[in-house]
């Protein structure tokens, strides 16, 4: 039976179904509703879990690091500045090969301070060694949480997994959501069995000093795990999810109306809803337009992307983030994948929606019609707002 719920509420209920043993978090908008709901589930004895109220996001990430090192399933959630404050710890969690799951409720970064949605926060830690997933809907936000623990905790993987959801759009938006039975979740996601942990009966040193002789291989191992094991496992877990719960899980990426598409709109997260509307509108006029939605951003699904775009003539990348002084990070990676594979395709890059600026259907349609050659074009820049620094 479907329940009509706020995104954060639905995610909290899903996390509870995953039976984490330790949750630690620090308040930040728009993440707070997730952990408030989890704290309440614990208070109501619906979830048996230790909730550690810490004094910063740095400590929230460190706390779940410690819990995971002690062999317990651990979860945290944050946004924006909180994620940036965690940055040092996130690299550390990945380097220590601990399968923490983190929900990043994507929000802009200061300055100016702004609490609304874009995806600049997560891009700042894209190189940390974490698996990165992006949800389009509230339902998918929930479904990716179920998959995230299963991917990260695989003994061949042992890496942190981030489920990215767009702030407010998905965290505060209401949607009719389907929940699996606890018994089905327990089969899909059995209890976590740590291959190594802090154990007085088998003492080991975690986080040692590692000199030039050994360090490089540790980083190489993460790269290999992401590009081989995770790339395969993400798709396998998605298929298992679809089989277990009867709902489509996409794994690496989703292709929408791509059968003969020559023009492809490419993005990730909730913006893809608008892109699909644009594709529908253009298809209605006889244009061959499709959408590719990245569900997995790390590892970056190069091969799947090149396959999906094999027949494309124009690709338009829309992203709510920018590597200031360069191009949008996803634009850069899409062009790298395509041109590296020798594809003869034009790729245009658009930066949109920063700080919660609405991205309208008409703007997408106008970009398709413009047939320009751009790499980091800011959409909807209001000239009257330029000229003064806030």
């Amino acid at each position: 039976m479907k329940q009509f719920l706020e995104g954060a509420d639905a995610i909290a209920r899903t996390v509870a179904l995953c039976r984490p043993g330790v949750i630690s978090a620090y308040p930040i908008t728009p993440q707070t509703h997730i952990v408030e709901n989890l704290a309440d589930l614990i208070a109501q004895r619906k979830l048996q879990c230790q909730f550690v109220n810490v004094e910063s996001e740095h400590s929230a990430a460190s706390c779940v690091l410690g819990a995971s090192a002690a062999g317990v399933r651990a979860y945290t959630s944050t946004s924006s500045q909180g994620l940036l404050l965690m940055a040092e710890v996130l690299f550390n969690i990945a380097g220590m090969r601990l399968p923490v799951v983190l929900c990043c409720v994507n929000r802009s970064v200061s300055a100016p301070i702004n609490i609304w949605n874009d995806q600049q926060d997560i891009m700042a830690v894209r190189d940390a060694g974490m698996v990165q997933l992006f949800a389009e809907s509230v339902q998918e936000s929930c479904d990716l949480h179920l998959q995230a623990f299963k991917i990260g905790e695989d003994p061949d993987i042992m890496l942190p997994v981030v489920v990215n959801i767009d702030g407010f759009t998905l965290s505060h938006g209401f949607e009719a959501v389907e929940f699996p039975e606890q018994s089905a979740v327990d089969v899909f996601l059995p209890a976590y069995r740590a291959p190594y942990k802090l154990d007085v009966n088998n003492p080991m040193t975690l986080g040692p000093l590692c000199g030039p002789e050994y360090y490089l291989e540790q980083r190489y191992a993460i790269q290999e795990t992401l590009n081989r094991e995770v790339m395969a496992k993400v798709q396998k877990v998605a298929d298992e999810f679809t089989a277990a719960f009867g709902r489509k899980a996409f794994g690496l990426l989703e292709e929408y109306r791509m059968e003969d598409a020559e023009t492809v709109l490419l993005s990730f997260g909730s913006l893809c809803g608008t892109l699909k509307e644009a594709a529908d509108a253009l298809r209605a006029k006889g244009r061959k337009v499709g959408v590719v939605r990245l569900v997995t951003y790390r590892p970056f699904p190069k091969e799947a992307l090149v396959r999906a775009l094999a027949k494309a003539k124009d690709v338009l990348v829309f992203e709510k983030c920018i590597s200031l002084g360069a191009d949008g990070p996803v634009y850069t990676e899409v062009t790298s994948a395509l041109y590296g594979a020798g594809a003869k395709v034009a790729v245009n890059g658009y930066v949109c929606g920063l700080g919660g600026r609405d991205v309208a259907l008409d703007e997408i349609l106008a970009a398709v019609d413009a047939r320009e050659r751009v790499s980091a074009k800011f959409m909807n820049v209001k000239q009257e707002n330029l000229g003064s620094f806030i």
Partner: protein
Amino acid sequence: MIDEKILFAPGHTACAGCGQSLAARLVIDASGKNTIVGNNTGCLEVFSTGYPYSSWRVPFIHSLFENTGAVMSGVEAALRHLGAKEGINLIAQAGDGGFGDIGLQAFSGLWERGQDILTICYDNEAYMNTGIQRSGLTPIGSRTTTTPVGPNAAAGNVRSSFSFKKNLVDIALAHRCVYVATASVHVPLDLQRRVKEAHKMKGPKFLHILCPCPLGWQSDVSLTAEIGRLAVETGIWPLVEYKNGELVNVKKFKELKPVEEYLKLQRRYNHLFQGEAGAQALEAWRAVVQENVKRFGLLEPTAQA
């Protein structure tokens, strides 16, 4: 007898005469094998865990410079979740910079939440691992690489090199830690007794250990214990013990030795024995001792009194 379980194996790369390695071994041997140790970045972690070796014969975790308070909070929560906390001692430890400066926030959180962990500051009074830079626990007039001595030292460094030493004992007491004590490496049995006392109590505990550092203090490697003894016997480093906020034990003396006896063994204080600024610094040291005498009653009452 000193506990000779040797849970901290020899062969590590600490400097000769290192007070911290001595203290760390005394702590873990007093704690026993059912102990999990978390350690901030610093000398101790560096000289004891160079991969593929480790001196730790108990589970040990190092994550970052400032987060072991939070990491061990997570370990404690995990053990509670598993119902496995009973009988396990938890230690979250750091140097003076890792504890009192960059790591203080995470320790404050651990203490305030009342988590059942012994927190330990191994205090060698500067950032020794990075090459002797001043920390918030560097005492009055100490020469470090970021508080050098020179004609303009007073003008340039008056705030940094002549400021008081951050009082972690008071900070711990303000958090209502159930056990708060100081210790010194020159009295190993007393140090181990304090560790055991701490583990007996449920809740957040704090042990502040003065660890002479021949490299940073520019002292003879054979004098580590002696310098520790003089720190106590001059009244500079009082040995005190609080339980549930009450001062229950103070090491007292019939008379205190002059501060110069302690300071003169360390070349980081050479400059205090010349010039007006040096004389002022020595006065400041004596004032610290007087404050300790008054606060802790360091002097035993004489027979006549």
